[in-house]
């Protein structure tokens, strides 16, 4: 039997592939990588492209990924695929957007968390829930 290596391809929103393979090809940032069993430990960033899993007997599976990370251990290859296209400036734009939303929400609000006020309102809400609970118990007993 030829040597095989275990391959897992996962994304944050689900598992994509899991199984044995004779060889794995992945689009690393420095160029395409071919990983055979007993490869030395390696981590690298992947760019968008095709991951090919050679399962032997001419059986090759293709998966498109939009970037991610690759980890190689001597007997396991793990591809952590991104579900979104990532780029430094795209991330930056998203971050600015999130900041802006926060600033808008916090307009004319103090920057200090008012513990006392919060605690009072939470206690009030909790008391209300408790009294509803109590009322329900009384109602149940009567009914």
């Amino acid at each position, binding site marked *: 039997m030829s040597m095989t290596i275990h391959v897992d391809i996962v994304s944050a929103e689900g598992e994509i592939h899991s199984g044995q393979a004779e060889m794995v090809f992945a689009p690393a940032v420095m160029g395409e990588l071919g990983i055979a069993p007993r490869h030395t430990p390696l981590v690298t960033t992947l760019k968008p492209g095709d991951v090919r899993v050679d399962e032997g007997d001419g059986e090759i599976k293709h998966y498109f990924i939009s970037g991610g990370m690759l980890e190689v251990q001597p007997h396991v290859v793990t591809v952590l695929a991104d*579900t979104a296209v990532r780029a430094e400036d795209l991330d930056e734009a998203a971050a600015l957007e999130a900041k802006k939303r926060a600033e808008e929400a916090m307009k004319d609000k103090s920057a200090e968390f008012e513990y006392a006020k919060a605690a009072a309102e939470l206690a009030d809400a909790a008391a209300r829930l408790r009294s509803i609970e109590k009322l329900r118990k009384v109602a149940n007993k009567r009914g």
Partner: protein
Amino acid sequence: MAVGKEIRTQIASVQSTQKITSAMEMVAASKMRKAQDRMGATRPYADKMRNVIAHLSQSHPEYKHPYTQDREVKRVGYIVVSSDRGLCGGLNSNLFRRLAKDIKAQADSGVEVSFCTIGQKAAGFFGRFGGDMLAQATHLGDAVHINDLIGTIKVMLDAFDEGKLDRLYVAYNSFVNTMTQEPTVEQLVPIAGEEDDELKHHWDYIYEPDAKDVLNGLLTRYVESLVYQSVVENAACEQSARMVAMKSATDNAGELIDELQLVYNKARQAAITQEISEIVGGAAAV
């Protein structure tokens, strides 16, 4: 008959409320199943990611990433995960209460806090009570995508990189079962590594192109996956909490209707009795 007109209207109004709450209960039940499936789907990625991080903490890189380094704590950041909508029992207020306790403890030990909120309810909470809010994400919908969270998380990680925050936490409801949701606060960065005995010997990865970039990408994704998972878990909590809350609301409405019906029947009977006695009294007088 004039008797009990108000009671009848009240019964009708309670009945229409009951219709709404029972519909909401059913909607929440079906959404909860989907949310739970989604929670299961994120698990493989999180597990694999945790493995890689565990391997990484066992290797001996020359480059130490700031996310793995503990430092003196002057200011901490909380990523607060809440629901967008209400009517889900005490889900959000339980979380905020747990959080308020934490914030108080931090403030007492002289540590300042900053926030970033996910979900409308947390935004509203900190909008009312102030606090230094750095970023915000709302209206994520039922199927949360990780790209809706990237910006928000990046703001917090940038603040960590710049030294404005020395520690990051995520606060969310963890899903125990349909009836139980547990308000949880977890530390995100610095990352606490896990032990793996198999890899105890001295070794290191090959990093391509270099350790700094690769670790940066990997640890950022790790933090993102943790936050994503807590958002997905919180969504499942939201649906199950809403289902339970709506079920008890429907039950309560049923009880209320029964009671009102009883009152109404009594009033009706009293009116009939009175009418009869009036007739009898009138007949006797003649």
